[in-house]
C-alpha cells in the first residue's frame, strides 16, 4: 500500500466518522455542534469539489454555486447517507448531479439568450495578474491557449466519456470509484476512458503537432 493510498484510507475513515457524528448530532437536535463537525468535512473536500465543479461548468461563479448547493444538500440529506459508501463518493455524486443539472439549464438558457462576446466568465483581468515569479506572458498565453483547446475538446466528448475521463484522470479515482460515482460497470468505465483518450488525441492531434513544431523552432532559434 502506497503512502497516498494509506492517507486516502485514513481520510475516508475520518470522513465516515465525521459524517456519522454529524448525523447523530442532527438527530439529537444539537445543530450548532453538528455544523461545527460538518465544517471539518467541508474543509477537507472543498478544494477537490471546486475543481470538479469547475471542470464541469468552466465558469467560476457557477462552479462556486454548485459546490455550495452540494454541501448544503449533503448536510440536509445526511440522514440518508449510508456508512458502507465512502462520504467522498456519496458527496461527489451529489455534486456531479448538481453540475449536470446546471449545465442542462444553461444549455436551455443559451438557446434563447445570445452569449456575451467576452471570454469565459470569472476570468481575471490582465491587470490583476501581478508580475513576479510567474511564468513569462508568452508562456502564460500558450498555457491558456492549451487549456482552452483541451477544454473545448473535452466539451465535445459525450457526457459519460467526459465524466469518466475527468474523474479517473484529473481526480485520480480508480475504476471502482468511478463506477460507484457514475453508476456504470467497471468494464464500461474502462471502455469510456479508452474512447475518451482516443477521441481527445484525434481532436488535439493536429494542434499538438503544430505546437511541437513551434516549440522546436523556439529551441533552435
Amino acid at each position, binding site marked *: 500500500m502506497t503512502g497516498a493510498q494509506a492517507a486516502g484510507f485514513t481520510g475516508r475513515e475520518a470522513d465516515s466518522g465525521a459524517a456519522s457524528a454529524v448525523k447523530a448530532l442532527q438527530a439529537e437536535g444539537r445543530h450548532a455542534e453538528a455544523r461545527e463537525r460538518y465544517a471539518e468535512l*467541508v474543509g477537507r473536500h472543498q478544494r477537490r469539489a*471546486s475543481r470538479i465543479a469547475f471542470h464541469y461548468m468552466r465558469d467560476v461563479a457557477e462552479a462556486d454555486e454548485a459546490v455550495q448547493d452540494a454541501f448544503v444538500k449533503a448536510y440536509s440529506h445526511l440522514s440518508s447517507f449510508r456508512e458502507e459508501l465512502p462520504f467522498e463518493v456519496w458527496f461527489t455524486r451529489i455534486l456531479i448531479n448538481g453540475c449536470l443539472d446546471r449545465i442542462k439549464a444553461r444549455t436551455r438558457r443559451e438557446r434563447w439568450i445570445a452569449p456575451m462576446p467576452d471570454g469565459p466568465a470569472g476570468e481575471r483581468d490582465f491587470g490583476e495578474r501581478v508580475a513576479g515569479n510567474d511564468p513569462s506572458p508568452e508562456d502564460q498565453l500558450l498555457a491558456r491557449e492549451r487549456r482552452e483547446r483541451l477544454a473545448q475538446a473535452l466539451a465535445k466528448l459525450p457526457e459519460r466519456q467526459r465524466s469518466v475521463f475527468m474523474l479517473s484522470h484529473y481526480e485520480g479515482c480508480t475504476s471502482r470509484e468511478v463506477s460507484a460515482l457514475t453508476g456504470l460497470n467497471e468494464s464500461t468505465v474502462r471502455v469510456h*476512458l479508452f474512447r475518451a483518450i482516443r477521441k481527445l488525441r484525434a481532436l488535439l492531434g493536429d494542434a499538438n503537432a503544430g505546437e511541437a513544431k513551434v516549440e522546436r523552432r523556439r529551441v533552435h532559434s
Partner: protein
Amino acid sequence: MRTRVKRKWRDVVSILNRLRLSAHLDDAGLAAVWTDEATSGVRQPHPHLESCPTCRARFAELSAWLQNARVDATAEADEYFSAERLSAQHASIFRRLEAAERPARVIAFPRFAQPLTSRTSHASRWIAAAAAAGLIVGVGVGQLMDLRHPFTPQSPRTTAQARMNTPTVPISSGIQLTPIADTRDEAFLSELDASLSRAAVPELRALDELTPRAGDRSR
C-alpha cells in the same frame, strides 16, 4: 495426419502473433495500454512496447501529454479557486446552513388593523344609516314644499316688494298714462336724432343740406 494439421495451425498462429507483436502500435493500441495501466493502477509489461523503442517513445509521449493535461487542468482550477475564494465559499455555506435551520420568522400583521375594523364597524354602520335617512327625509320634505308652493299665501314682505317694483296706474280713471321713465327716454332719443340729422355748425349747414343721406338714397 491430425497431428500434422494441428502443428501447422500452431505455426500459423505463432506467425500471426509474431506479426501482430512486431507491428507498431497505433493510437488506439497505445490508448488501450494506457487505460489498462490507469484503471488497474499497476504497470503491466506489454511485449511489443518492451521490444520496440519507437512505440515506447510514442507511449511515453502520450503519457506525458495526458500528465500535462492533468497538471494544466488542476493548475487552472486552483488559480481560480484561491484560498480567499475558498474561505468565502466556506462562510457562505455555513450562512446558508444556519439560515436553513433557523425557524421561519412569522411577520406580525399590523396590530391595529383587525380591532379597528371590528370596533368601528357598528358605529360606521349607524353613521351611514343616519346620513342616508337624513338625506331621504330632506329630499322628501323638499319635494313636498315645492308641491305646496302655489297654494301657500305670500308673505307680507314679498307682496310689499312687488308693489314697489310695478308702476301704479289707477284702473278706475280710464286714461292710459305712460310711465315717467319712458317719456324721458323718448325725448332724449328724438333730440339725439335731430342733432344727428342736421349739422351742428351753422356755416356748414348749406353744405349739409346739399349732401344726400343714406335714407334718401334707399327711398
